[in-house]
């Protein structure tokens, strides 16, 4: 039963995603304004202007775990940010807590540089594995955040409560923080430490808000559709349960 429900949900999501991606809209989709992404866009531009660096930390989520989705979303965001800041005097630096994600971050940066036409500026060591455990990863990322010329720390991905150490280090350096996590405990920590925290599935909206391709916007729309359907289903189920039908 569970498998059937899962299959139906997957098929519906796939069809919806394809349809929304391939549909040609007359006007671009309008999403609600999220202050954190606006700050991120501005920070990226300022980093290029004043020659500072962007530190993008994409967490410790493994691609083979459910947390891998957060890492994929973080990589998509890295692609956009890397393309925007590739021409900066100090290119962005990427830290991660998973070896596979670290390798993918290097590949993503290289693609961003190629898209920006400055492939020769790419440095492979821009994407690095900070640590294999969460706190070792956080400790190494704290060191990167405390380095000079880091104006903005972008903490998007799979984090735990150790993300508080990263935010603390950023606040000490008076750097801008843009953070989003999939784990609720990390979200709680970020809510207390970040200026504009991103809660819930706003992590997966990051690529769409940073100017990614239509598939990301279609993904957001699909999430909204399914969310409303799920809410409707929950309400209906709760009502039926209360009514004794279930």
């Amino acid at each position, binding site marked *: 039963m569970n498998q059937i429900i899962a299959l139906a*949900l997957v098929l519906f*999501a796939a069809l919806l*995603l394809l349809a929304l991606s391939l549909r040609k809209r007359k006007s671009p989709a309008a999403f609600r304004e999220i202050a954190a992404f606006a700050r991120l866009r501005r920070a990226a531009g300022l980093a290029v202007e004043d020659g500072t660096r962007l530190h993008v930390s994409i967490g410790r989520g493994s691609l083979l775990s459910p947390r891998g989705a957060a890492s994929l979303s973080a*990589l998509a965001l890295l*692609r956009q940010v890397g393309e925007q800041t590739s021409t900066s005097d100090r290119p962005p630096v990427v830290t991660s807590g998973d*070896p596979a994600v670290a390798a993918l971050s290097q590949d993503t940066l290289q693609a961003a540089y190629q898209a920006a036409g400055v492939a020769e500026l790419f440095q492979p060591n821009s994407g690095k594995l900070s640590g*294999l455990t969460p706190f070792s990863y956080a400790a190494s990322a704290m060191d990167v955040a405390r380095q000079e010329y880091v104006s903005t720390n972008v903490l998007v991905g799979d984090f735990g*409560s*150790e993300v508080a150490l990263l935010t603390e280090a950023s606040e000490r350096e008076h750097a801008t923080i843009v953070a989003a996590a999939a784990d609720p405990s990390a979200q709680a920590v970020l809510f207390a430490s970040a200026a504009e925290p991103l809660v*819930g599935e706003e992590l997966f909206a990051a690529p769409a808000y940073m100017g990614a391709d239509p598939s990301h916007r279609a993904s957001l729309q699909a999430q909204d559709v399914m969310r409303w359907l799920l809410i409707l289903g929950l309400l209906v189920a709760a009502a039926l349960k209360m009514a004794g039908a279930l």
Partner: protein
Amino acid sequence: MKGKLVATAIAIAVGLFILVGTLLPFQILVPVRLELLHWAVIISSAAVLVGIANLLNVHMQKVRRREKNSAYSAILILSMSLTLALGVLFGPNGGWMQMAFEGIIFPVEAALMALLAVTLIYASVRLLRRRTDIMSIVFIATAALTIFASISLPFLGEIPIFGDVIHPWLTSTLAAGGARGLLLGVALGALTTGLRALFAFDRPFGGK
């Protein structure tokens, strides 16, 4: 260009196999799925080695360029090398490895966790200074309430009402319900993200 196409084709094919094999009860797909999973495990293990090599390269470059805090990078390289040698010589479950773990790794991470406690307290104290809105007040109130509901006073034990009424309601109803909602949203996001990777809309591997 051809390599990118091959990588994309492999990613799509493997993803479909795993997904279909997981959702559809076709026995013929089970061994294929499991074998693919086995390959994934092996590749992830190899990725650990690649990550360690990358870590070593970064710190060696830092030492070579005599950058700031390059001394710590040198200590890291030495420690890594020594631990690797001990593990190879005496096994991962050997006494030396256990000593290194219990003497270095465990205390360090425990200290970081204690630091996290201070950080969280400080952040909570400064929250209303940084952002004064209703949600911040609710957050602070909820945190305080939860803590008060879970502690026991000296000589008195659990605080009445807080311990037996508020605390269960907070943890089981508010926190759990909220967490479920968050997890549902995250799950939906993960689903569409996975599908986007499955349909090759996102290709973090070499190239888009």
